[in-house]
């Protein structure tokens, strides 16, 4: 049954016009009907959803599109709380990938035959979808990369190597993902530029006052995250861009943890570069993108050489194609790019404001429940009216290793969380720990899953403490 249901153009049932968040009883009836019509046969939980007196949460409605979530792991119902590492993929995305390989697999930008033309159209359409998703003014400002890491490396090697010189400064924060630290270390070693790191303030968020003070005429780039994958805090990118531009510096935004969860408008942010990863936003792995302002991309030399990125090749030199092709050497991940476009459609169909609103609610619930457990230390800012955390909590339980927690949660309770340094070793070192556990949510998670996680965690802690 589920397999059949997966073939439906499932995101339609989640489209804003099909379902609205119920306020009164009348609209709720509509919700129930549209939900039941489209997915009543998918899961047994559907029936109980319809009988509830509460409005059906986005999480519950979305789950039908994610077949992977409906399974048992180690004898327990899977509770997937590792979306900050990678998100699950809805049927619409898997269908797009399958359709490409099944019906029009062909190389792009080269062949004149039907399949190649079709593949090229869909590939370039995907670029437009990504551009629209982050409100870029032109799809040529979107460069497809393997992932966000490659996108940052592209800027580091192309823009960085040709613009940084000894004594120049690049400002980062200690909370950056390794992918936004290591490329700059490599480039600074090659150019003589200096890396400067903003530390955390008393609220355990990167200190913006310190960042402002660090900015000077020497500053050539500020490369920072939008939302922290450990602290769950957000940085005021619009302000940072204004401050940085005032001293003539460029800004690169690592938006891996923001683009999947909230409206990100590159024109409003006015950042010079922004990177994100497909697999964290319901798209496939193997594809990510770089947004760069047109004028900057035009000035930048190629990152990798090969086919696709050239204009003419002679034995002694070559001329290069215009962006974005200049930065897309070789055959790209065509099917993956097309499926990323489908992911953009899917998320837009639900509505990013709605996803964000729901995740804010989930986030508060997760923090509240987790902080109610004894001996739990959650990293990052405390939520308040002015502080809105992302829907994730990195934490430690006194006296227990997060990997032990994660192992037991998986084996005994089917709860998938992350443990380790989450590719943010400097941040963990700054926090005085080697590792942490992290539960990260997405719009397909529910409060009931948070409850299951909390019960499982309490049980896990009790188990290990019994051995002390």
């Amino acid at each position, binding site marked *: 049954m589920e397999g059949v249901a997966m073939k439906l153009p499932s995101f339609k049932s989640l489209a804003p016009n099909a379902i609205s968040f119920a306020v009164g009883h009348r609209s709720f009836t509509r919700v129930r009907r549209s939900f039941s019509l489209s997915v009543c046969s998918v899961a047994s939980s559907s029936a109980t959803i319809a009988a509830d007196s509460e409005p059906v949460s986005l999480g519950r409605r979305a789950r039908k599109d994610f077949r992977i979530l409906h399974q048992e792991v*180690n004898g327990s119902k899977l509770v997937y709380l590792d979306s900050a590492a990678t998100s699950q993929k809805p049927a619409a995305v898997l269908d797009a990938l399958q359709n490409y390989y099944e019906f029009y697999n062909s190389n792009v930008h080269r062949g004149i035959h039907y399949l190649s033309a079709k593949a090229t159209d869909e590939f370039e359409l995907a670029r437009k979808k990504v551009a629209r998703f982050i409100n870029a003014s032109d799809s040529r400002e979107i460069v497809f990369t393997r992932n966000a890491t490659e996108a940052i490396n592209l800027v580091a090697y192309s823009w960085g190597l040709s613009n940084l010189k000894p004594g120049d400064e690049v400002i980062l924060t200690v909370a950056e993902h390794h992918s936004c630290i290591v490329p700059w270390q490599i480039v600074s070693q090659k150019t003589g530029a200096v890396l400067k790191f903003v530390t955390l303030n008393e609220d355990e968020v990167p200190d913006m006052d310190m960042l402002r003070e660090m900015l000077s005429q020497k500053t050539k780039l500020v490369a920072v995250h939008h939302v922290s994958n450990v602290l769950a805090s957000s940085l005021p990118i619009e302000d940072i861009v204004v401050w940085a531009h005032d001293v003539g510096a460029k800004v690169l935004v690592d938006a891996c943890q923001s683009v999947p969860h909230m409206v990100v408008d590159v024109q409003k942010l006015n950042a010079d570069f922004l990177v994100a990863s497909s697999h964290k936003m319901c798209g496939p792995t193997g594809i990510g993108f770089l947004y760069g302002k047109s004028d900057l991309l035009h000035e930048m030399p190629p990152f990798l050489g090969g086919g696709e990125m050239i204009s003419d090749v002679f034995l002694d030199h070559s001329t290069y194609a215009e962006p974005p092709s200049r930065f897309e050497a070789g055959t790209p991940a065509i099917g993956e790019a097309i499926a990323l476009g489908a992911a953009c459609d899917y998320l837009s169909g639900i509505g990013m404001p709605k996803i964000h609103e729901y995740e804010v609610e989930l986030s508060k619930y997760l923090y509240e429940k987790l902080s109610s457990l004894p001996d739990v230390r959650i990293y990052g800012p405390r939520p308040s009216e002015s502080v809105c955390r992302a829907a994730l909590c990195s934490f430690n339980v006194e006296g*227990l*290793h997060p*990997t*032990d927690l*994660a*192992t*037991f949660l*998986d*084996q*005994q309770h089917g709860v998938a969380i992350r*443990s*380790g340094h989450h590719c943010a070793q400097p941040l963990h070192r700054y926090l005085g720990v*080697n*590792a942490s556990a992290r539960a990260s949510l997405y719009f397909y998670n529910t409060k009931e899953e948070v409850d299951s996680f909390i019960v499982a965690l309490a*049980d896990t802690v*009790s*188990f*290990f403490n*019994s*051995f*002390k």
Partner: protein
Amino acid sequence: MNTTSSISSLKAVASPPLFISTFRPTVKSLRNPKFPSRFSPKRIRCMQDSNINLNFGSKSNPNPSSSHEFSVSFATVSSLEAEEALLTTTTTTSSADKLRLLVTEFRSLTEPIDRVKRLLNYATVLAPLDDSARVPANRVTGCTTQVWLEIKKDELGRMRFKADSDSEISKGFCSCLIWILDGAKPEEVMGVRSEDLSEMNVGVHGKAQSRVNTWHNVLMSMQKRTLPFFDGDDDDVAHREEDRRLVQHRQEHDLLFNYVNGRRRSYMESSDYSVSLLPLDYDFTI
């Protein structure tokens, strides 16, 4: 054959001196763990003490009536096989035998929670590691937990291992590996294959070559640091049947170790790159 007496023999022969001399169970560790309500208060069978199992390579008591039941199935191991394994152990203490015994033991634990419990118990008997050994050079890379491994060669030419971790489960892994390999000859250490450990996995699914697989990473680290002591021309092993396999195994490791020892630089241009960058978890076998 009297199983109990076999197991007793096993304890005497198979437990390394280090284990016996350093095991000082505290009152806390000996008490019956207070399991959460959803777990029955199953006891882990122990040859030394009925409350805990601290005998490596042992299997649970097939007769639940003699102690609290422990949900371990013997279905996967015939009693004949088990007896054979035990008999073998009474006559030799080779690492290969210990490994087989431990694999059999973990294979007999069909419930994941029982494997975790077993490891946690083994963690309690891991000999302490001096603070002076907790140095970066002794860190096992590639694990999500911190593991320190101290390696020495004693006057008899045998490898001596000590380890510790900030994770209890990882300590359990280390405890098992040390029980297998502490006191072994270098060629014995080099002869263990990570695949042999795959059935003992706790918390890691699928293939052994996972980045988070502590079994694998600690073993690789033991082997990497034993390699300098490994003399393939040792007369004692020259005629052993497994010699060829050892040599082949060493060759398979060469690719990795050439990187480690700086004989190959194609991996990175500079020699400044840390060894920890190397994919210790990667299996180069084709």
